[in-house]
């Protein structure tokens, strides 16, 4: 019998300082050391400067009541609401513009991007002119022009254009809006649940189609599920049916819901600007699908619309989604320009806070944190969408 060899002695790993690993270690230590030293230097200087000048710091101001009014807000507030509420108001205003802007910009951008492949000469050229014009002018300038157009061209409040319960004036667009009760919240929840259920049904229908070749109506069923969910939620909440109707007061329209010129200018400016970039992204995505795919689809007898929907777009999506994500992020970040036209979104409220409390670093750090979180969330969402919707490569 062979004797068991003795266990090999553990050789201590020695790293020569002249080897590649050794140098890499040195550089990393130096790099981290320099960064830490730099940050320490900045922090030390800042604290010393603030102490010497008697500037107070700290995040305790967040619990104080903020003393200013905000012209439009989704969250109700009162005299004792703290700065937390103020920042929440700013964030909801940013999200309001960002979400609606992303949806509208995607729709408009896709239409224009597809329109550049149309048979019609004039349509092609109009889309091209749109893209070139809106891409080459700064967004800040576009927002200023939109705001000027809205404040100059709309009729003043006294001569507001009125149609039934709809008002249009320099104060904005006013329209009837239901008095928000539990039933309405449940209706929105039901709508979202119906959407989720419809999406699950659409997946099953697609698998069924792939297995048996029998098409099932997907879009109609999804819409029906959404409507059923909304109605069920509304009914469960007590079926509230009270509407708030706008009525012309002394200086402004009371009641109903209103879209201010600031919101409209910001929304339209961002939508038209971002749609031009999205159109370019969509165009390059569709152009990236090789001609052989179109020809193969035609040889299978698919119509142009079917070819676009079943063959071209799924392949184009893979190329479209990453740059589309960065366009969505750009739209969200560009909404920070609203501070110039008076829409109270996050940067504008942070600005006012900065001036009322003097805590510049704290306020700016909160703003940067919120934007970073929004960026990460959007990127994560789009990455998930990318993974699930794009074609799996072999």
């Amino acid at each position, binding site marked *: 019998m062979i004797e068991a060899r003795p266990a090999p002695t553990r050789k201590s790993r020695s790293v020569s300082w002249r080897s590649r690993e050794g140098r890499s270690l040195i550089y990393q230590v130096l790099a981290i050391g320099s960064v830490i030293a730099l940050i320490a230097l900045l922090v030390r200087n800042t604290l010393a400067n603030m102490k010497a000048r008697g500037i107070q710091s700290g995040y305790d101001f967040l619990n104080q009541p903020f003393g200013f009014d905000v012209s439009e807000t989704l969250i109700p507030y009162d005299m004792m609401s703290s700065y937390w509420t103020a920042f929440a108001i700013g964030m909801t205003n940013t999200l309001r513009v960002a979400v609606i802007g992303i949806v509208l910009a995607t729709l408009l951008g896709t239409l224009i991007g597809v329109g550049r492949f149309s048979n019609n000469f004039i349509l092609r050229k109009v889309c091209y002119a749109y893209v070139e014009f809106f891409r080459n002018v700064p967004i800040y300038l576009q927002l200023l022009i939109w705001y000027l157009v809205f404040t100059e061209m709309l009729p003043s409040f006294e001569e507001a254009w009125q149609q039934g319960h709809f008002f249009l004036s320099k104060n904005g667009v006013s329209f009837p809006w239901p008095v928000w009760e539990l039933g309405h919240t449940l209706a929105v929840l039901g709508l979202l649940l119906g959407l989720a259920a419809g999406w699950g049904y659409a997946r099953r229908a697609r698998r069924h189609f792939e297995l048996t070749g029998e098409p099932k109506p997907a879009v109609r069923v999804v819409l029906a599920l959404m409507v059923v969910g909304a109605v069920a939620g509304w009914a469960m909440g007590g079926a509230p049916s009270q509407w708030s109707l706008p009525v012309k007061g002394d200086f402004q329209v009371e009641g109903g819901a209103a879209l201010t010129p600031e919101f409209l200018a910001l929304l339209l400016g961002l939508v038209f600007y971002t749609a031009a970039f999205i159109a370019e992204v969509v165009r390059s995505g569709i152009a990236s699908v090789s001609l052989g795919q179109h020809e193969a689809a035609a040889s299978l007898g698919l119509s142009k619309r079917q070819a676009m929907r079943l063959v071209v777009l799924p392949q184009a999506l893979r190329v479209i989604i990453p740059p589309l994500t960065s366009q969505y992020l750009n739209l969200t970040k560009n909404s920070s320009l609203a501070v110039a036209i008076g829409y109270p979104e996050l940067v504008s409220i942070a*600005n*006012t806070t900065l*001036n009322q409390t003097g805590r510049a670093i704290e306020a700016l750090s909160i703003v940067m944190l919120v934007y970073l979180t929004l960026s990460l969330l959007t990127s994560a969402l789009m990455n998930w969408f990318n993974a699930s919707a794009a074609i799996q490569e072999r």
Partner: protein
Amino acid sequence: MTSLKLKVALAAVGTAAMAVALPAHAGKTLDTIKSRGQLVCGVNTGLAGFSQADSNGNWSGLDVDYCKAVAAAVLGDAGKVKYVPLNAQQRFTALQSGEIDILSRNTTNTLSRDASLGLHFVGVNYYDGQGFMVPKGKITSAKQLRGATVCVQSGTTTEKNLTDFSRANKLNIKPVVFEKVEAATGAYFSGRCQAYTTDASGLASVRAKEAKDPAAHVVLPDLISKEPLGPMVRRGDDELFAIAKWVLNGLIEAEEYGINQANVDTIKSNGDPQVGRMLGATEDLGKHLGLDKEWLARSVKAVGNYGEMFERNVGPKTSINLPRGRNNLWSNGGLMYAPPLR
């Protein structure tokens, strides 16, 4: 190591060394001003009557004149001033960071500003109040602005005062807040808002200079807040604080004792001992401040006494056309009361 790596390593070491070497201690602003030979004064970007530059870059206004007076007292020449135009957001950080020496920019003296920003108010050079401007029409009082849209600039006490006024009187005013004052006035003149609010002196200035037809706009008589405007300096530099405070007091006291720009050289010999003290003929008050005895004489020679500053920049003969009112001497029923210079 190759030269590139050596450079990178040296740079890292150098950065760390800098962190240790450079101490962060407060310097003396007065010494800096004297060695620089120039006073750096933060002013408004353009408020007629207070600080405004003409097309050749020459600044004029009440706040500008105060800076000239301080420069004349400290440096001997009212022209040795560099004017840094600042908007409402930048003004405090510019003074805190040392970019400017004095902030003379129609800034309201409040507790939070005096106590928590690391800055000091030097005094009041204009007693003001916040008011409203509306197009001429059926509104005659601020209390009629129920539900109105009001344009306001962000970063000022105006926002908070408007909210307080609105809540106290249950008016539910909707503010539209702009970053830049030009955007706010532009929105008001285009009709977006029914009223514009800022300090009453600012309203007069905007109405005179920016309205197409000044007679079509009216400044409402109600003043909804107290706005004592004055210059500011940084904390920790007591010499500069004392000089700034007493130049302001000196200009007010000069008007009380009849010293003006024209007679500052001759009035020394009129026999009034207080006049002699102030102008350095009999006593040297300047040495308490670290200046020579002619400090106030130079200031008055450069810009005149407070009354002359007022008349020249915002008085009834100018387009701003503001009455002395509260800004008159205490002996004439106003609030300008300087502690005695002795």
